C-alpha cells in the first residue's frame, strides 16, 4: 500500500503540512518495502484547481491513503472518486510521526462527501 503524507520539506523527518493541495511536498511511503519518496508539489502556486490536480498526481503514484490536516471540496470529490481514503493528522510532528499515528490507528478519517 502506498501512503501519501503532505509535508513542508522532503524526507521522513520533515514537518507535516496541514494543507493538502498547496503542501510544498508530498511524501509517498510504500508500506511493503518501507521505502519513501518525496516529490516537490508542482501545484503549490497554481492559479486554481489545485485540489483535483493534486488528487490526480496521487492517483498516478498509486496512493490509496492520504494523511494531511484538511482537504477542500473539489479535492474531496476527486479523492472519493479515486478511492483514496484521507486521514486527519492534527499534531505538529514529522512525516514519520504521522505515519506512526496512522499505523497505530489513532487518526480519524476525513469525511469526503
Amino acid at each position, binding site marked *: 500500500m502506498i501512503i501519501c503524507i503532505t509535508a513542508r520539506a522532503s524526507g521522513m523527518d520533515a514537518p507535516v503540512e496541514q494543507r493538502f493541495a498547496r503542501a510544498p511536498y508530498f511524501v509517498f511511503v510504500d508500506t511493503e518495502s518501507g521505502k519513501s519518496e518525496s516529490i516537490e508539489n508542482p501545484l503549490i502556486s*497554481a492559479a486554481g*484547481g489545485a485540489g*483535483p*490536480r493534486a488528487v*490526480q498526481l496521487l*492517483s498516478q503514484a498509486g496512493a490509496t491513503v492520504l494523511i494531511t490536516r484538511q482537504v477542500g471540496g473539489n479535492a474531496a470529490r476527486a479523492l472519493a*472518486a479515486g478511492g*483514496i481514503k484521507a486521514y486527519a493528522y492534527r499534531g505538529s510532528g514529522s512525516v514519520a510521526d504521522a505515519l506512526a499515528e496512522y499505523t497505530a490507528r489513532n487518526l480519524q478519517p476525513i469525511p469526503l462527501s
Partner: protein
Amino acid sequence: MRIAIASGKGGTGKSTVAANLAWALSRSRDVTLVDCDVEEPNLHLFFPAPATDVPVTTPNPEIDAARCTLCGECGKFCRFGALAVVKDCVLTFPHLCHSCGGCTLVCPHGAIREVPRTIGRVSCSRPLSRLVLISGVLNEGEVQAPAVIRAAKVLAEGHPLTLYDASPGTSCPVIETIAGSDACILVTESTPFGLHDLSLAAEVAEKLGTPAGVVINRSNGQDEATVAFCREHGLPVLMTIPFSREIAAVQNRGGLISRDLPGWEERFAGLFRAIPGVSP
C-alpha cells in the same frame, strides 16, 4: 463611439461617473450604458426598470465514457483542474473550466465534446426614453467574468454611443472591458492608494492603445500628486468632483447628481466633450 470607465482602485466612483454621464448625455441623444462589473453590477440601482434577461453560456467538456480509455491526457493538459483522471473515471469540475477547448484537442480518442452551461445572464432594460441599460451578471461561484462581459458588449453593438462601466482592478475583466473602446475615463481619488492604482490602470489603457483621461473624485483640493502624475503621462484631467456632503447625500439615496443638483448636468456634458478623441 465607445467609452470605457475604469479606475484600478475600487470605490473611486466609476459607477457614479458612468451613471451621471449617461443621464446627462441621454437628455440630448441616445445612450447605451453597459455594466461590465459583472461580479457586482450596480447601475440598475440608479436606473430601476423592468428588464429582459438573456442567459450566457460557455462550453464545458463532456466525456463519452464509451470512447474514453482513461489515458489521462486531458487531465494532464488542464491547468485549471477542470478535469481529473482518477482510478476508473474522468471527473469534471465545470465551475473551474475556462472554456479553452484544449481538452477536446488533446484527447486522442475523440471522447470529449463541449456542451453549453449557463454561467450568468445579460439583463436589458430601457429606463429612460433615450437610455438603454445592459447589465452583465455573473452567477456566484463562477470564474468566467470575461465571457459575460463579451456577451453584454455584443448586445450593445451597433448603438451609436456606448459607455462601458468596468470592474475595479486591472485583470482580465478590465482588459476585456477596455479592449475595443475608443477612449477610456480613469476615475481616481486624491489618496496615495487611488494614485497608485491609477498608475496601473493608465498602464493598461496605454498597452491597449486606448486614449485616456482622468476624473478626480472626492477631491479635497490637494490633488497635486495626481495632477503631476497626469501631466507626466500626458493624461488630461477631464473633471474634478469635490468631496462634499451634498454630493454624498444624493449618491447614498440612489440619486444622480447630474439630475438632482444644479450645474452638474452641464459639467458631465463638459466631461464628455473633454474626453480624448470625442467629437460631439
